[in-house]
């Protein structure tokens, strides 16, 4: 893990400064079915390709933000704060 990540607050930094928070998931609320709820709790897409995921700038400004990263090449095409996430993005929730 020696790629760089653009923190929306601090700019381009070594990935070692960040903590990974996993792919975004849709939180199943209190009215969800057993299936939906189990999927939310225990199943992940684990894609080989582009993924929207959570990162924490642990050794920096400590902000949680979202990154669109290619899981095979580690290329990151976009990072943004949760408040700035595109409208069509499903509600994400930490795993």
């Amino acid at each position, binding site marked *: *893990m*020696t*790629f*760089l990540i653009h923190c929306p607050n601090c700019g381009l930094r*070594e990935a070692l400064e960040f*903590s990974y*928070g996993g792919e975004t998931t849709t*939180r*199943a*609320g*209190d009215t*969800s079915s057993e299936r939906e*709820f189990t999927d*939310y*709790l225990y199943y992940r897409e684990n894609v080989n390709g582009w993924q929207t995921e*959570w990162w*924490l700038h*642990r050794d920096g400004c*400590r*902000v*949680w*933000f979202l990154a669109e990263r290619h899981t095979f090449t*580690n290329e990151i095409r976009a990072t943004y*704060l*949760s*408040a700035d996430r595109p409208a069509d993005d499903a*509600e*994400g*929730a*930490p795993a």
Partner: protein
Amino acid sequence: MSARIPPRDGESIRRDRPIRFTLDGKRISAFEGDTIGSAVAAADVGITGRSFKYHRPRGLFCMTGSCPNCLMQVDGIPNIRACTEPVRDGMKVERQNAWPSANRDIHGWLNQVSFMMPPGFYYKIFQHPKWAWPTVEPFIRSKAGLGKVPRAEDHEPRERITLHPDVVVIGAGAAGLAAAAEAATAGLDVVVLEQAEEPGGALLREAGTDPAGDLRDAAEAAGARLLTGTAAFGVFEGPVIAAANAAALYRIRARHIVVATGGIEQPAVFPNNDLPGVMLSSAVEILIHRFGVLPGQQAVVLTASDAGHRTARTLVEAGATVSVADLRADAPAGEGYRVASGTTILSASGRRHVTGVTVGAPGAEAGTDVACDLVVLAGFSAPSTNLLSMSGADVAFDERAQAFLPVQLPENVHAVGAVAGTTTTEAAVAQGRLAGLDAAARLGASPKDAVARIDALRAEAAIAGDPVILPPEVGSGAGKQFACLCMDVTDKELKKAVTEGFSSMELLKRYTTITMGPCQGKACMVPSQRLCARATGSTFAETKRTTSRPPWTPVELGTLAGARRTPRKETTMHDLHTGAGAEIMWAGDWRRPHHFAGPEAEVEAVRTKVGLIDVSTLGKFRVQGPGAVELLERLYPNRFAEQPIGRVRYGVMLNDEGVIVDDGAVVRVADDEFFVTVTSGNTGALERWMTWWQADWNLDVRLLNVTGAFGAVNLAGPGSREVMAEVTDADVSADALPYLGAVHMDVAGVPALVLRIGFVGELGYEIHFPSMYGEHVWQTLMEAGSDHGIRPFGLEAQRILRLEKQHILVGQDTDAESDPFEVGLGWMVKADKDDFLGKRSLADLAQTGPKERLVGFTASGAWLPPEGASIVHEGTWVGRVTSARRSAAAGCIVGLAWVPAGWAVEGTAFDIWFGESTTQGSVALQPFYDPEGAKLRS
């Protein structure tokens, strides 16, 4: 006898500065500037170690740190490459893999039974009979491996350094130095990595004073940073270069990478080609020119190029008798030495040192015997492309060079010098300059004169030279012919492995371990490839090299591990505690008092008078903003919307599985502001947890970890109200500050937030104040309490006190499956409020009911069950103890334990087991002290 020759220009040693060290206990004299290798060569020590498998004697071979022959144990550290390791006064050097000595190694007999150890023998011959393995294995284990792992716990701490230069140059030979000078002159930030102690690369094999001086000075004058003794050992994603020296591990992320790693001389294969006295020309030239050591008197040089003749002239000039076996049919005549054109070395002979060779036409059965004490393999160099390959470059076979050269380079990676196939210093320098200019141009720093110079440089950089001739794949005659010196693999063994079906380099590598030893293929890749080609009926060109992987050069594990740094946190009152004689213990990263006078006396003080404990380690959060209420309502199953200002709620935090994540106090400070405390050891994780959800829900909240900003103490005991009254003007009566009240007031003149809560089950005040006033607040409270019998108390007393109240410790009494119903906190869950973390799971759990329960228990007897002791019923394991302490209040042992839900009935008896110890316990559902909580609320 010394092999040292008279002083000469350009030698690196200071003959006026003697240095002494020991080799296997025997004193060796050396000079400042010597390496261990040059010093033992000067002392005529022929055998530098014993080989890995057959325990054959081995001697100095490369003098460049590229082979396994001189690995030694230096001051306890194993596998140090002696040929490049500088001597230090008093160092203790031991030769490895030999007992009682390298000269008379008792395991030399292994060489005679080598037929028993074919490649993969350990897969085969110890399979049957099975019962023999336990006997055989310890023997193999004791014979395997190199050197002795030091028993000492640690040595010098290593730093980790990250560099972000514009250009990193790997290798400070002619090409690398030229590239560095050019890029630095253009204004770029340049770092040069050189594994040798001295820059120069192959230039150091040349005669004269400071042969690399001009290039080095030009690079340094231009501002390039030279890191010598620093080996690049891997190229990782990024690309990031990993490099190491004795003091640090470097991570280097550069915008351009110039690989100038040069070439590595390859051995020739013939019987007994591993005898001490058989050397590469690099070793001979470095020993003579840099260290003034002549490694032999009668030399035979094998070559197929003018490189060998240069070595021959050097040897003659140094006083040796020389004959050259030149593979070329039209070899040039010797200048002071004999030349046999069209010949090769068919075999070597000798027992502990080479005493002669047989020279003849390639492939001949017999030839002319020549007596000698030095055999030099000169000019069979292979480009050192491994780091290039790791960076993503492709290599392809070049017919003229008879070598694999880089053909396709990743963007921003340059290959210059011998690694790219140059054969002259001039071409290498020109290539280096071009790479430096190219990097500068692509980084927008092109110097004005660049365009004018490029054509001339391109002409100089063109690679020219005669077609390369390699020695025959094998020699002839009796004796082992080694392809791999690290792992003792011979031509016959490779051939046998191929007939067994391991017919490619990658398979041979895994089966015979060629290219896997300490040299990582440096001194065996080409011979192995060619023998593989020969055995499979293909060509060198068709035989792929094995994949290059880090570490390309050996790295000490201590370097990778880095410095051992243990985070250590102390509260602002810490010095007062140690001054009061507190026994200090680790609590996570914190240093906290375990006890002061003694836990029993401290417990008694809290129960009967008053006690004071430093709880500054509590995690503290300020949660403020229009969304603060909503955030807490979603994070906790408790209700906060109607919580009055100035009131404390005990809250338990769950995850969506309904599992308890943490517990603590939540104080409403203002309409839109809360003060939240969490378990000390959980603070970092809780901060991540809460800010994560806050980010996901996009709530307008400022959530700040103020753990370090606030110190805190808990003043507890029946006398605590009187003590409080002495340190504040505020009203601390039960009416003004009742149980679960929270008030801002000055305490000891310091602004503080005071909470009426009591983890220990007494009337108590948790006082939070700016941490800088820690000593003042503590001292003022202790003075005010002195008339009331105050005692400071530590963690142990607190544990006893809370256990008497059956207050749980999240993480101690709960685990990753504990839900609030199981631990008796179901009353806290407001299932009818809007969605919160864990709501969905709790609905399910409420349906099924808990399977296990955390219950209090009492136990008799003197034995205190440890954490994890088993709860046993009629011989069956049914549960476990999470906490237990002796309680004076209860008059017995009290604790908490997990038991089947059906057992959560007052008085249920069970056995407690741990190892050989056992006792009886019974369930006690009520707190052992003040079950109604009257004291707490008083």
